[in-house]
């Protein structure tokens, strides 16, 4: 087994999400340093608020204002914060029941150490300096020494949830860093490409040769292992003419993108056809790869000048 190939793979996705009326009021409220909850059918106040009653599934819209102070219901000390978590130094994760609320909100608590945190301790919101209408407008909680606010007993006051310039959506950015490794069969394929060779793998059962190999015969469901050199010449089995320029792609349109059955392969791979006017490319055209220095893959395929392949030689590969 040669060394395992590895490459960094970053998956980044900025989801843009619209908000329901309750979520919109709650997140806009945070921007204005106001914490809103929602009343359920059985008279409980949920913070953070949701659009539908968790018990009856009824739409709920009665908003109330709760205090920015509350009580820790459970906690966990995080000695090594991870990249995107609320605080960069060690902190406690906490569930906090804000005064006036019946349920708890998850957030971070800035405290000197685990000995300074306990269930039942009093905390208050520390607002972020810049607020945009997001849960991170609460920078974190901090310890707070006072008795529960009067609202806890009296019930939280109603709030119409109306603010100027309400937030109607959030953009949730997310980045995950992976290390990609392609596995046994594709490693062999990629290593051969560095020598400007195309290799496939043959199914021990149906004898078909797959290029690129994925390690298994999708028809027989068995492992492929016998490596087979294919090409370098091949036949265009079918093609299309691309008329729209792709972003960040330095290729003039129109150009031809084709399925190419390399000689000896039972599966066509795809590539760009160059070295011939786009309107002269045809099914059966014989082509060969064109390599550019340092590249792992052929840059494109060009005509070999051989006579066109007869349809019957590639009809099963369409």
């Amino acid at each position, binding site marked *: 087994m040669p060394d395992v190939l590895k490459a960094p793979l970053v998956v980044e996705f900025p989801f843009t999400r619209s908000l329901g009326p309750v979520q919109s009021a709650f997140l806009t409220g945070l921007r204005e340093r106001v914490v809103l909850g929602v009343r359920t059918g059985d008279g409980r106040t949920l913070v953070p608020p949701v659009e539908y009653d968790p018990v009856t599934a009824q739409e709920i819209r009665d908003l109330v204002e709760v205090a920015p102070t509350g009580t820790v219901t*459970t906690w966990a000390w995080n000695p090594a914060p991870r990249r*995107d978590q609320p605080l960069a130094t060690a902190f406690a994760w906490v569930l906090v029941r804000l005064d006036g609320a019946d349920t708890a909100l998850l957030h971070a608590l800035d405290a000197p150490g685990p000995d300074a945190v306990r269930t039942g301790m009093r905390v208050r919101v520390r607002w972020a300096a810049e607020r945009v209408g997001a849960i991170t407008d609460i920078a974190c909680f901090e310890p707070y020494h006072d008795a529960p606010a009067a609202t806890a007993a009296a019930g939280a006051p109603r709030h119409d949830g109306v603010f100027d310039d309400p937030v109607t959506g959030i953009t949730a950015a997310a980045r995950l860093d992976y290390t990609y490794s392609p596995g046994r069969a594709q490693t062999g394929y990629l290593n051969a490409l560095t020598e400007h060779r195309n290799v496939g793998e043959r199914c021990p059962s149906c004898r078909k040769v797959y290029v690129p190999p994925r390690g298994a015969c999708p028809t027989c*469901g068995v492992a492929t292992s016998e490596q087979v050199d294919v090409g370098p010449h091949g036949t265009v089995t079918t093609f299309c003419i691309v008329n729209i320029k792709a972003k960040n792609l330095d290729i003039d349109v129109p150009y031809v993108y084709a399925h190419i059955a390399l000689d000896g392969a039972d599966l066509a791979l795809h590539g760009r056809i160059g070295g011939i006017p786009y309107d002269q490319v045809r099914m059966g055209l014989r082509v060969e790869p064109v390599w550019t220095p340092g590249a792992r893959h052929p840059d494109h395929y060009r005509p070999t000048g051989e006579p066109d392949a007869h349809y019957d030689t590639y009809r099963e590969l369409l």
Partner: protein
Amino acid sequence: MNREIAVVAFAQTDHRRTSEELSEVEMLMPVLHQVLAQTGLKTSDIGFTCSGSSDYLAGRAFSFTLALDGVGAWPPISESHVEMDGAWALYEAWTKLLTGDADTALVYSYGKSSPGPLRDVLTRQLDPYYLAPLWPDAVALAALQARALMDAGHTDEPALAAVAARSRGDAEANPHAQLRGPVPHGEYVVHPLRTGDCPPLGDGAAAVLLAAGERARELCERPAWIRGVDHRIEAHSLGVRDLTDSPSARLAAERAGAFERPVDTAELHAPFTSQEVVLRRALRLGDDVRVNPSGGALAANPVMAAGLIRVGEAAARIHRGDCDRALAHATSGPCLQQNLVAVLEGDPR
């Protein structure tokens, strides 16, 4: 339609910290071949195929379609996939067999956690408005639950350490386990949970074959009959739940018939020691019930396969005659949010 459905074969990979030399299908294929070999079936004999996996784990889009290469899905087979643990794929397959549409089903699942930052990856399953922007990782959320259990007097740190030690001790008899034998309980990952309270990170795959009625008896000497399966979910907002209890697990067990007669064995999908404490209480498991003889998820936790493995391990004990009636449990989501319970029985001996 009242049909008897049984688990007739089970296979799993050796679970390892990394399987970087193998693609997902290369890791999966051997277990597919093993369950077929155990029963003498070919792909073309299988009536229905269902799998469970998540592309987020390895960051590979549509990896489950590539995994199908290992099944031999041509000519086209009757197939389905759930973006969940394979135990939920088993539920779908069981339902399919109950309808009479198929007599046999292949269920498989796999997870490669090694390519990505699993703790961060799992935050992406949370509420995108109020939770995901804070990136609370799986260990942090389990630690909040563990603290709540301690505050309620249901457990303490020595009791959790004992769960860890028992699990890894039992795993010494499990050749597929990743962590076995004496394992240091370690430092706090997120207080009050130490490394020993957390599952190992690793890659692995599992497969199960189901068959109905007489077909099951032909394929397996002592089929593990599925007497019931049910799954239930709790509110997604952690702050509205009682984290010390699992009403969803209890209700699923009740609906699956777990409380009709005592079980002798339970395979619980409790990735964290504290979650075994919650489940034992919720599922009313007494001290006479053998819990996680395989070592459970604390010994090997290939995400997306670890729940299906609980069903497979319970079934395998029935196959071997080590158990007559077992409860198998799978979980998904933060702090045991969603729970599946299956009840399996062997024919009287």
